[in-house]
């Protein structure tokens, strides 16, 4: 019975594919990208399991995807046209290199870091606005300079000084409790991907000893706070590292340094594994180990060789995170089409196609704001006088989790309370769709869009050219024949003016799955 069902499904599936005339817009049979080490590992695994990998993505799909995954925004219209016309066989590789160097790369990825480091000025983190700004800027700078990851973590773990002047000390302030247990649990979560509460009691106690000599004091400046090591103790600390190795720390030595040096050793099984797995998950929507922040001995990687390979690459390149991004983006595994050739659950599990996912709240809002030429005015009530954020600044750059808006809340921006990756919710729901379909705010944005006005001026109200430009800007591709036909019909509708028709087309595209999802 099952077999018959499957057979019927396959036939049905193929009929649909044959019918979908626009398929060439999305994928192509022949690869122009060379096979990489990642692909050897992933494809051989797929072969063993008898799963067919997807085709290559089309250039149209690729350019939109790589822009979103590197700089968190879709390409400009001209960038799409130039890329599609480019005949260079290496153009994907060259584009990846170029995008990794854009300043928006650091801006977009600082958002993820701000999520897991819980950057927020108010309850329950209470970093306070000045410290939030210093900390956020430090993260963007580190990403922009591509600071080696071991150095980045070491600075976070070992810094001392003022929360305003030595930004990484805020790591120790972005915890809801300031006892050594709370700090230790946060260190394990962030840099080892381990849930502290699942560790045995003695291990917990041993780890927390490394963080038992941190102290905080106020200064004369309002809300300034110094994080420092207390050297007054007479007793040495005797404890064990998470891997069971014993250590004795003399009282005049800051135990945080001892822990940091243990953590960032190349042979440490937790350190590189955690970050490469997270990056993989940030790009593919799920990790090689899942959940990415619940790594346990009984939580096994889906493809162990893949994780080993990425770990080795990270260590070999001296903890160059951009390099990890680069080798992933250059792989066929990443550049595959989102259209599966095998619909079994295993295909999804073993990365046999690129999984579609709804865009993050901030990214989606960035596109909408940019397209309407009109940003959101964020005001923070703390402290007085209020903080105002320039309206046309990107939403991904909203460093403070306490500054938020209705759209961001509706579309699942994380509250940054726990640092868990699961706090960010990219699942579509009824309320979000209702907003997109029927919001007065969105309607006004489209109606008064400076971007649309610009397009109309350039195309001189030529219907076909206008449609083309709208498609290129919002979906990074030319419209298909049948789409043009549908839209031309729409222009003829009685009682709908030219401008209204344009508004409705834009509205329909913003409501389409192709627009709302990474694909």
């Amino acid at each position: 019975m099952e077999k018959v069902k499957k057979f019927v499904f396959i036939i049905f599936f193929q009929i649909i594919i044959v019918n979908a005339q626009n398929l060439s817009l999305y994928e192509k049979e022949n690869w122009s990208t060379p096979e990489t080490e990642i692909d050897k590992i992933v494809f051989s695994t797929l072969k063993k399991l008898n799963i067919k990998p997807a085709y290559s993505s089309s250039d149209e799909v690729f350019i939109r995807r790589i822009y979103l995954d590197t700089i968190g925004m879709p390409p400009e219209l001209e960038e799409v046209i130039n890329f599609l016309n480019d005949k260079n066989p290496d153009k994907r590789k060259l584009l990846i290199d170029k995008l990794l160097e854009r300043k928006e790369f650091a801006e977009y990825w600082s958002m993820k870091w701000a999520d897991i480091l819980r950057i927020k000025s108010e309850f329950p983190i209470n970093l306070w606005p000045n410290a939030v700004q210093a900390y956020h800027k430090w993260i963007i700078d580190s990403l922009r300079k591509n600071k080696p990851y071991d150095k980045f973590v070491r600075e976070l773990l070992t810094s001392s000084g003022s929360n305003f002047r030595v930004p990484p000390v805020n790591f120790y302030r972005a915890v809801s409790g300031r006892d050594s247990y709370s700090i230790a649990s946060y260190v394990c979560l962030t840099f080892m991907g381990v849930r502290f509460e699942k560790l045995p009691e003695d291990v917990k106690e041993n780890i927390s000893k490394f963080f038992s000599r941190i102290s905080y004091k106020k200064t004369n400046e309002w809300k300034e706070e110094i994080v420092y090591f207390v050297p007054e103790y007479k007793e040495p600390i005797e404890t064990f590292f998470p891997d069971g190795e014993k250590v004795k720390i003399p009282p005049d030595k800051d135990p945080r340094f001892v822990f940091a040096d243990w953590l960032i050793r190349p042979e440490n099984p937790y350190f590189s594994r955690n970050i490469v797995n997270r990056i993989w998950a940030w790009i593919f929507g799920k990790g090689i180990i899942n959940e990415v922040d619940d790594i346990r001995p009984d939580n096994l990687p889906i493809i162990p060789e893949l994780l080993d390979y990425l770990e080795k690459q990270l260590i070999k390149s001296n903890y160059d995170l951009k390099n990890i991004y680069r080798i992933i983006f250059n792989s066929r595994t990443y550049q595959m089409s989102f259209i599966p050739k095998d619909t079994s659950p295993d295909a999804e599990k073993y990365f046999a196609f690129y999984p579609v996912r709804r865009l993050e709240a901030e990214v989606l809002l960035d596109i909408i704001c940019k397209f309407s030429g009109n940003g959101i005015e964020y005001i923070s009530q703390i402290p007085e006088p209020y903080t105002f954020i320039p309206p046309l600044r990107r939403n991904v750059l909203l460093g403070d989790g306490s500054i938020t808006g209705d759209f961001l809340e509706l579309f699942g921006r994380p509250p940054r309370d726990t640092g868990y990756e699961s706090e960010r919710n990219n699942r579509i729901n009824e309320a979000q769709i209702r907003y997109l379909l029927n919001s007065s705010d969105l309607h006004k944005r489209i109606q008064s869009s400076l971007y649309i006005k610009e397009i109309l001026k350039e195309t001189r109200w030529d219907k076909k050219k206008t449609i083309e430009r709208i498609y290129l800007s919002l979906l990074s591709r030319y419209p298909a024949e049948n789409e043009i036909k549908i839209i031309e019909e729409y222009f003829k509708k009685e009682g709908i003016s030219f401008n209204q028709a344009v508004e409705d087309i834009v509205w329909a595209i913003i409501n389409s799955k192709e627009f709302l999802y990474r694909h």
Partner: protein
Amino acid sequence: MRILWIFLIIFFWSNIYIIKGEVRPKAKAVIQIWLGGGPSHLDTFDPKPNAPYDYTGPFKSIPTNVPGIEINELLVNLSKIADKYSIIRSMTHGINAHETASYLMQTGHSPEERLVYPSIGAVVSLFKGYDYGYKGIIPSYIVLTTPQGRFSESGFLGFKYKPFVTGGDPNKTPFAVEGIVLEGIDENRKKYRRNLLYSLDTFGEIIPFSKEFEWFDKCREKAYEIIEGEVSKVFDLSTEPEEIRDMYGRNKFGQSCLVARRLIEKGVVYVTINYSGWDTHSNHFQQMRQKLPELDKGLYALITDLSNRGILDSTIIWVSGEFGRTPKIQWEPPWNGGRGHYGKCFSVLVSGGGFKGGFVVGASDEKGEEVIDRPVYPKDLLGSIYYLLGIDYTKKFPEKFGVDAKILPEIENGPKKGILKEIINE
């Protein structure tokens, strides 16, 4: 034989019921009127006519229809129905910062605890909402018209338990509830647009087995169901008689109260009206002259209207800010007659849903600075509301949330302590 068994089962069942001391819940729904910023207790429900001018300021107090209870002179309408609500004059928590006090007042938990707890609205909509048999198409937890902002209402319950926030202004026509009522597009065009969307959005057909897109389509269907159906009607105040609209006051707060009544009538479980503007550090008295009549009219209308419709007995109304304001007035510039934050002692009003009317709980000293009788802590107040709703506040949150956390911290019950038994109808 079988009958005997059934009889025995019923017998034991009813015994268990009695032993556990449970009562049928009196309240079905809650309206929370949140006076964000913290209103002065002296200038609302705890006037101190005998205190020096530096405390009372220019306002006088007036008697109510309940002998012995006096309130601020600007609350004229409310003074006529004091038998329908009770005033807690001994509310206390000692926190003077907006965000932590807001959190404590609406979760009952200390901000020092490691977890971020959900607000009472999210908790009520968890235990009375979709997970426990709520079937309404209108979401069970609604916020009029803007979100809290100071903390995430859903806490560790997560995204799914966030309230539906309306946006818009019910005092305008139409009340443009975000995503429900769209201004400026006629029915014909709506129909055309919908067809256009369905013919252009064919992307899902390329990956027909995608669970994600299957879910997407379901959500879109439901969204259209809401847009085109009952839900938009509940927010349409034009069907309400003019005199009713006038009674509530033609302003954002008044009309929000009216919308709240309409939502409760449709079975919504928890409605929060975020009524801000009470953070009156400077020019306090001018601002109060403008705000108090608004509050007076809206709240009077809400209580009276619910009572006339026979649903006050099953609807709790609670009116509170995160704290009160300093009893001693700051006359000097830049305040020019202002009051600061004051969490040590302030007032809360409760009405309906099993709360008795016409009572005063606790007392403050002659200047309104200290609680001198029967302190009421946030958990006592929230616990009383949970009790009336039939929610066992001593139990833990369901396991699926992955936390080991009780709904409220331990409450010490006793004479003049804990749950507000003195104003709960038994």
